[in-house]
């Protein structure tokens, strides 16, 4: 048993006029290894603390939050690697609903805006559409996104223009479909992004790459889309 100190962002619209930081300690034991384990303990002490969680293995994308100033997933963050008091805030830049829970509507709207599905209007063959291992490899580093929003909510361009800038997660997804040899609407996809805001608000600040818990690189994908734009312009 050991005690750990936390500073938690709290806000309950039912009763708080404005958000505040709560200082609280919790007893953890040797089996509590991830930050999420400690949050579960905290909730057993104070059941009013609200946060999202599900898979507890870094694959569902539920428990993204701002941890000591950096976005990450609570379930894969080593508890003992964190400096105390461990300061937890909701993801920045999105409206807070309650405590660590943000309204992700804008984030998903941008994801939906890039037509996140393979379009292929040639008649479907009896069997699978063939794709070489090399062509398939182009999707690695793209399809693994878990839509946790760590990246977009660390991106200054997304903070200022969440309604206009697609953001790193959405652009990573856009490139995932552009890069798929089975998708036939690349030029329509590029048209959709040819806009001073949707794509070109990215100023290569790289915050997104720094925080992605899956080790993905949205900046690189954005660069590839920009290259394609340039190439088709000439």
């Amino acid at each position: 048993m050991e005690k750990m100190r936390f500073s938690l962002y709290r806000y309950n619209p039912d009763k708080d006029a404005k958000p505040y930081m709560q200082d609280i300690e919790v007893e953890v034991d040797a089996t509590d290894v991830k930050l999420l384990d400690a949050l579960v303990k905290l909730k057993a002490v104070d059941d009013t603390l609200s946060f999202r969680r599900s898979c507890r293995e870094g694959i569902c994308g539920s428990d993204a939050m701002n941890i000591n100033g950096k976005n990450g997933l609570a379930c894969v963050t080593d508890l003992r690697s964190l400096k105390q008091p461990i300061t937890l805030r909701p993801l920045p830049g999105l409206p807070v609903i309650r405590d660590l829970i943000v309204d992700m509507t804008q984030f998903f709207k941008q994801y939906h805006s890039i037509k996140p599905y393979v379009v292929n209007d040639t008649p479907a063959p009896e069997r699978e559409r063939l794709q070489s291992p090399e062509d398939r490899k182009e999707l690695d580093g793209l399809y693994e996104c878990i839509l946790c929003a760590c990246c977009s909510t660390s991106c200054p361009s997304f903070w200022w223009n969440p309604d206009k800038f697609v953001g790193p997660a959405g652009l990573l997804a856009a490139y995932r479909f552009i890069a798929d040899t089975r998708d036939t609407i690349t030029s329509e996809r590029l048209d959709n992004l040819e806009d001073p805001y949707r794509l070109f608000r990215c100023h290569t600040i790289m915050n997104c790459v720094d925080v992605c818990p899956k080790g993905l690189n949205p900046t690189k994908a954005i660069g590839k889309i920009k290259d394609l734009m340039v190439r088709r312009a000439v």
Partner: protein
Amino acid sequence: MSVPVRRFDAVIVGGGGAGLRAALQLSEAGLKTAVLSKVFPTRSHTVAAQGGISASLGNVQEDRWDWHMYDTVKGSDWLGDQDAIEFMCRKAPEAVIELEHFGMPFDRLENGKIYQRPFGGHMANFGKTPVQRACAVADRTGHAMLHTLYQRNVRANTQFFVEWMALDLIRDADGDVVGVTALEMETGEISVLHAKAVLFATGGAGRIFSASTNAFINTGDGLGMTIRAGIPLEDMEFWQFHPTGVAGAGVLITEGVRGEGGILLNCNGERFMERYAPNAKDLASRDVVSRAMAVEIYEGRGCGKNKDHVLLKLDHLGPEIINQRLPGIREIAIKFAGVDPIKEPIPVVPTCHYQMGGIPTNYKGEVVAPKGDNPEDRVNGFYAAGECACASVHGANRLGTNSLLDLVVFGKSAGESMIEFIRNERPAHKPLPENAADYSLSRIARLENQTNGEEVADVRTAMQQVVQRHAGVFRTQEVLEEGVKQIKAVAERVKRTQIKDKSQVWNTARIEALEMDNLIEVALATLISAEARKESRGAHARDDFPDRNDETWMKHTLYSREDFKLSYKPVHNQPLTVDYIAPQKRVY
């Protein structure tokens, strides 16, 4: 009290693989469909599936659907319904091809076809030699499948109710299903969703165990709602223990690791599976491997300072294979076991993984319940698919990769059955009973007003400890009887759960309390069904009855909530077109 009523042709509870596949069918048919999910759909636990989805595509070696069927029947230890199994295995190639056409990023062979890997219990020639049947996207097959199905639903304009929790099933005086009640988490508001047809696709309930590969949200809500509505649950004694959960953490390491050549070692460095399953070795069926591991640990050949786990060795595969085919596993091992499998073995233990039983359905996804002499009378307007349903294709033990297949095959067939029902049998809504939401409202009110009650976290821990201790890999009469007694005592405590948080907006304490009501129903069903079954079959292994007893026990259990009553119904021994696969001794 009156609550808002929303009206749809179809309501689907669950946005995992099964719910999304069904939703696609209904949306594309132009029906007004609502999909409810406790979490954003891509956060459903299907996302965690790793190893693959089975289909006899024959991309690597010759394969046939009837070989797949044979393996599934054998894997089920002859408790699976052979009509449903035939249906699933026959449809598998078409279902997987369809996923590929939807855009699922399958790994590829040199010739451009879908990559298939070996998996436990997948054999050619009616059980003779291993065959590569598991279609895979690295070790992220569930993630790729779930995201693809979600994406396809975006295209089809499916209407989602995200972060809505269904509370109870609404049945009318005829016993027909006409809708559900639900809680919107963001506002705390209760509504009635009035529907011509309702599908449950609420996933598993692995959270009744303390060590589980399941997500926090896998609380068996669909099962709780079903049994509270008076419909019995089928075969709830059968829970699969996956051989390779990370010791301590419970996080899964896919069987695909052994498919790619990983092996299990005891503390003497011995590849012990050679003794238990000389033929299939490390790739024997899951119940067989889990039991062998438990024996090794029990007999003192476990590893580590407490000798409480065995080791999964894969470094001999080389960094290239590991990085290309098992990158997610490497990530999990580093994060949750603190070892890099390129260099060191992973400590693993058998961990609760999958629920074979569930809401009784036929292969069309229609829910069936006993009525008069008919053990399988259709419950009008009610459908179930995926892990919450019992078709029953998995019988007493599920083969790896057959669940993802089950989701898409039965998700689709349930969707088709619903379309037919809505068009032909219930073109107009059947009226709601009066005060349709009263029951749910009374549950909420009880929770609000409870004083001197029990903490949800405490009763949940108590339940998990009982189930873990009394319904684990080895079962005996004494252990089970004691378990039944203890779980009934916990159930009494659950009736008095209390929460401090009384607010409306995103009250997760309330949600966890409501989930607890469902978990306890599943825990009761599990222990009571297990205590009664006096034989060993598949995942239900009893020390005191070590053999399968087909004469007495080749039948499905049905457990009802009233007086904890058990009844039984026959296994479907008649496949749709092929010959019956007669019971044999199950050796690997």
